[in-house]
């Protein structure tokens, strides 16, 4: 079974530029999560999708971050414009649902904003 795929693995941009990350969840997983992990900390949830609808985006800085999950499969997370404090690893995770709530993570994208 293929795992959660993410791209790119690394990205370096200058502040005020824009960037986008892509995630493909495990086949059949209805729920998709985006987490931000700042160096030395645990991941923090940014947004959660159930199929193509948003369940929780309370921690998403909506003035600069946006995310979508068209067709309920792949998802993209965008930052525009980026700030220095956005430097972090962005992790995508997916889960089957309530009966199997374990979340499975992708390899993450390390973003450096200079």
């Amino acid at each position, binding site marked *: 079974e293929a795992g959660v795929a993410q791209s790119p693995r690394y990205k370096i941009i200058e502040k005020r530029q824009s960037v986008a990350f892509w995630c493909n969840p495990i086949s059949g997983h209805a*729920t998709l*999560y985006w987490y931000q992990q700042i160096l*030395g*900390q*645990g*991941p*923090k*949830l940014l947004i*959660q999708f*159930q199929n193509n609808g948003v*369940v*929780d985006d309370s921690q998403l800085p909506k003035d600069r971050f946006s995310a979508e999950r068209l067709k309920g499969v792949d998802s993209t997370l965008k930052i525009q414009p980026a700030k220095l404090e956005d430097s972090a*690893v962005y*992790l995508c*995770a997916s*889960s089957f649902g*309530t009966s199997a*709530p*374990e*979340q*499975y*993570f*992708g*390899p*993450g994208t*390390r973003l450096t904003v200079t």
Partner: protein
Amino acid sequence: AQTVTQSQPEMSVQEAETVTLSCTYDTSENNYYLFWYKQPPSRQMILVIRQEAYKQQNATENRFSVNFQKAAKSFSLKISDSQLGDTAMYFCAFMNTAAAGNKLTFGGGTRVLVKP
């Protein structure tokens, strides 16, 4: 809001020995899951073990086992017969199943170094 605390920033252990990582959490909920995730230098978060709060029996997965003390809100992870590949960050995580979304709340992590 739930909080998860891992009080040990770093621990080292000799190969083949046992190490125990501590985790405490704060919640008023009765139904929830607890997880331990491993994050090696490759950054991929790997699920190690899970525990349902309604189960009194402690979960075990090969060399990994937990000590779940619900009243004390404690959830420690024991790694037995430590191997060099166990070197990683370990995160304790809480999931409130009563709330919509099943989001994970993570602790700050414990770095484990297995020495040859």
